[in-house]
């Protein structure tokens, strides 16, 4: 009999029984739907043990890397240690190594790397603000690359009435400790096809995960074209232009375009890579077919929804579209 460990529970599977059925039979609650490997609602993570190939059929490579599997399709040969896919990791304490504004509205934070991660994943910061009265939890994407950078880099958008961002700008200092939880998310580079064209589209601090993904792909030897499109409302909102310019100089397969959504004629001449206009129209015009491309889109939820749909309708496979929506917090 094959043994399944799920937290403090141990489940013994009957001959030919799936992990899902065995767990349900033992009264454990696992969300599930079609039981056919299609709806993916019964997805779990196996921290230890061999995951049968059939239990990962239809999952993205990024999900496979993270040891996700479909419990309804999983009939294991040996012991598996499993947990819920959305179960939160433990809190880690990380010191602030660098802290500074990189433009008017973006705070660049560099933190002690207290866990391994893939660039483009995100983490949660748990922090008490207002003299310990309010506990904030905020999610930020990771812009650094663990093999190159000896810090975790985050780009914090400063919001006028933002509890956490105002606190981080005004009170957080180098040497302070932050409580981190992560890494989370599946928006990262998976080196499955080094020749596949990559299209990276981000608005505002949506650049953070994308610059991480681009640098990660380049250092892993991605040879296909990588087009990064950074959109912002105003010209002064662009940032890390030197770093991006260096990537263009060093890697012929890498291109950057800044799309400035406000009609700012002076801005157009400020950078050879800058254009004025609407990001949706820009993508439509310059990438009329996204067939065969891998697309990463990051930014506000409304933008992510609209641009994901657009690149899907212009040919990208739904499996090749990775999205990271930034959600507002109260």
């Amino acid at each position: 009999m094959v043994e399944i460990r799920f937290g403090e529970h141990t489940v013994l599977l009957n001959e030919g029984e799936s992990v899902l059925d065995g767990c349900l039979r033992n009264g454990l609650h696992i969300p599930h739907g079609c039981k056919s490997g299609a709806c993916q609602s019964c997805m779990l993570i196996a921290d230890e043990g061999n995951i049968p190939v059939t239990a990962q059929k239809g999952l993205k490579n990024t999900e496979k890397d993270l040891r996700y599997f479909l419990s309804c399709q999983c009939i294991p040969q040996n012991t598996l240690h499993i947990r819920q896919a959305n179960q939160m990791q433990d809190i880690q304490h990380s010191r602030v190594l660098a802290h500074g504004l990189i433009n008017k509205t973006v705070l660049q934070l560099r933190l002690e790397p207290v866990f391994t991660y893939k660039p483009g994943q995100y983490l949660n910061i748990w922090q008490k603000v207002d003299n310990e009265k309010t506990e904030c939890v905020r999610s930020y994407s990771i812009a650094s690359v663990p093999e190159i950078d000896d810090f975790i880099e985050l780009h914090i958008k400063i919001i006028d009435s933002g509890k956490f961002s105002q606190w981080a700008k005004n009170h957080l200092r180098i040497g302070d400790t932050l409580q981190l939880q992560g890494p989370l998310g599946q928006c990262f580079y998976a080196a499955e096809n080094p020749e596949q064209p990559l299209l990276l589209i981000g608005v505002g601090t949506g650049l953070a995960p994308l610059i991480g993904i681009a640098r990660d792909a380049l250092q892993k030897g991605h040879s296909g074209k990588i087009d990064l499109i950074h959109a912002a409302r105003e010209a002064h909102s662009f940032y890390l232009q030197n770093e991006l310019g260096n990537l263009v100089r060093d890697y012929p397969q890498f291109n950057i375009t800044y799309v400035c959504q406000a009609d700012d004629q002076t801005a157009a001449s400020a950078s050879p890579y800058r254009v004025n206009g609407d990001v949706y129209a820009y993508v439509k015009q310059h990438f009329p077919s996204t067939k065969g491309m891998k697309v990463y889109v990051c930014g506000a939820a409304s933008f992510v929804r609209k641009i994901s749909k657009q690149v899907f309708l212009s040919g990208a496979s739904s499996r090749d579209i990775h999205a990271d929506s930034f959600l507002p917090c109260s």
Partner: protein
Amino acid sequence: MSLYERIGGEPAVDAAVDIFYRKVLADDRICHFFDTVDMDKQAAKQKAFLTMVFGGPNHYSGKDLREGHKHMALTEIHFDAVIENLAATLQELGVAAEDIQEIAAIANSVKNDVLNR
């Protein structure tokens, strides 16, 4: 040979998902139902739906279909739009006319559940 095997099993479903979903998103009658949800989850749902209507292994009950569609206030027009897009997808994939009819019949068999009648 079952209908599901005849049209090519799971690889056929995979090929149909994106074609079908593109048609649905381009259809003004129904695209708004699909606009607010995660693309990944939508693609997985389309796959489950197509597996069912292709006569493949599925565990949808009439109750699931009722629950899932209850809040959407669907009418005959919406249901027909889905069937049309489904038929167009199958034609594009070169599925035989009689198989398309059989698939449409499976889809029609759950109509009352989907429309909560």
